[in-house]
């Protein structure tokens, strides 16, 4: 039996996203950020989105396009220090921002992907947002209950995908991408190269196809994917 073909047009894939959806976005800084999918989401203009991403990219890039276009109601992130716009919008109340330490963000996203309700950690966040957390005892140790972070959609950038959605990520562009693939109800992948099924060696697959719903070709590798000049 052949494996299913999940290739899909960019416009159709993004059109599945509805107003008010929670959308997870891969990437840490530039590497692994699905700029082309985000650009299409800006073009289509879905509103009131909750965006879950490690960072808010930089001004004039990626998540910042969504912020500038007024499409984001809330941002769940670990660090937005490289995007002054995002910090300003947070401070002026234009967007809500929930900060989660980076590894806990990764783990809470993964927990959703693993069908768990949450994880118990002993990482203490010294911030007002941490005061409402539930504590539990596990084997005589006090831990903090960290709920899974789920999403309706995930937007992912892969270096290579086969038509079934087996994914390979380049270098540090892997980061949150395999995790958001798992955690969303519907995962949309943009790939720099789309290969026939069978072209990726089974041992070298980073994200297995069953976690992927749509594979979209990138029409052109925009300049924003390149090395950032500062």
């Amino acid at each position, binding site marked *: *039996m052949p*494996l299913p073909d999940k290739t899909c047009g960019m416009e159709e894939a993004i059109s599945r996203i509805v107003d008010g959806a929670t959308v997870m976005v891969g990437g840490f800084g530039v590497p692994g950020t699905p700029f082309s999918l985000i650009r299409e989401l800006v073009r289509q203009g879905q509103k009131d989105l909750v965006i879950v991403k490690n960072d808010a990219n930089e001004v004039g890039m990626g998540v910042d396009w969504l912020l500038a276009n007024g499409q984001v109601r809330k941002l769940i992130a670990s660090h937005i220090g490289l995007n002054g716009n995002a910090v300003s919008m947070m401070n002026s109340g234009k967007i809500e921002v929930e900060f989660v330490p980076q590894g806990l963000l990764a783990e809470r996203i993964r927990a959703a992907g693993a*069908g*768990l309700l949450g994880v118990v950690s002993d990482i203490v966040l010294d911030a007002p947002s941490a005061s409402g957390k539930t504590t539990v005892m596990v084997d005589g140790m006090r831990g903090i209950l960290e709920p899974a972070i789920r999403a309706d959609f995930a937007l992912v950038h892969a270096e290579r995908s086969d038509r079934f959605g087996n994914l390979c990520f380049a270098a540090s562009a892997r980061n949150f991408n395999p995790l958001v693939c798992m955690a969303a109800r519907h995962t949309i992948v943009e790939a720099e190269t789309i290969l026939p099924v*069978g072209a990726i060696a089974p041992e070298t697959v980073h994200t*297995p196809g069953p976690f992927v719903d749509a594979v979209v070709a990138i029409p052109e590798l925009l300049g924003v994917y390149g090395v950032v000049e500062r």
Partner: protein
Amino acid sequence: MSLNASERMLRRAAREIRAGMTVNLGIGLPTKVLAYVPHDLPVCLHSENGIAGVGPVLDRAYANRNLIDAGGAYVSAIDGTSYFDSAVSFAMVRGGRIDLTLLGAFEVSGGGDLASWIIPGKFTPGAGGAIELAQKARRVAVVTTHVDKAGRPKIVDKCALPLTARGHVARIFTDMAVIDIVPEGPRLIELAEGISIAEVEAATGTRLLVADTPLPTF
């Protein structure tokens, strides 16, 4: 169970597998369903130990010592196979990425309860992966003989054995019938060729809902 009846059950169960699905097949009868799935149907088979895109079972002479499925069969890779660790494999299961699982059963109740993993005092090998599959696959169907070797019904009012999953079975394929578990109870929806409703009812340990209209056969 005549060979013919068994074959028809498997062939009917195979129609449960649809294009595009990721499917996990339990050991025993469910695995045998595979022979009746069209060869060109695009489907991804999952194995709990960490394979998506499980290929055909190989003869020992051609086997890869490092490639077995969860039942210990020497399987093969196909175009697009991937391997992953057992945590990722069950993330797929619990995270809702298994569209369908076909499982065997010791008992199934009219409410969709499944008992398949332990017979206290007799058969206590451990849960393996069945519990998570039965509780978390998006759709759970059972493939089983209608009665056990002693002729006792396997579809019962209430399972006597410890449960694998409570209320998750959506459909039961047997050598006599196809039964859907609906909110009102177990509903007889198809009959094996040559089997009457009365015969099914006599071989079933719980009251079946039966439509007034004629039932399709398989």
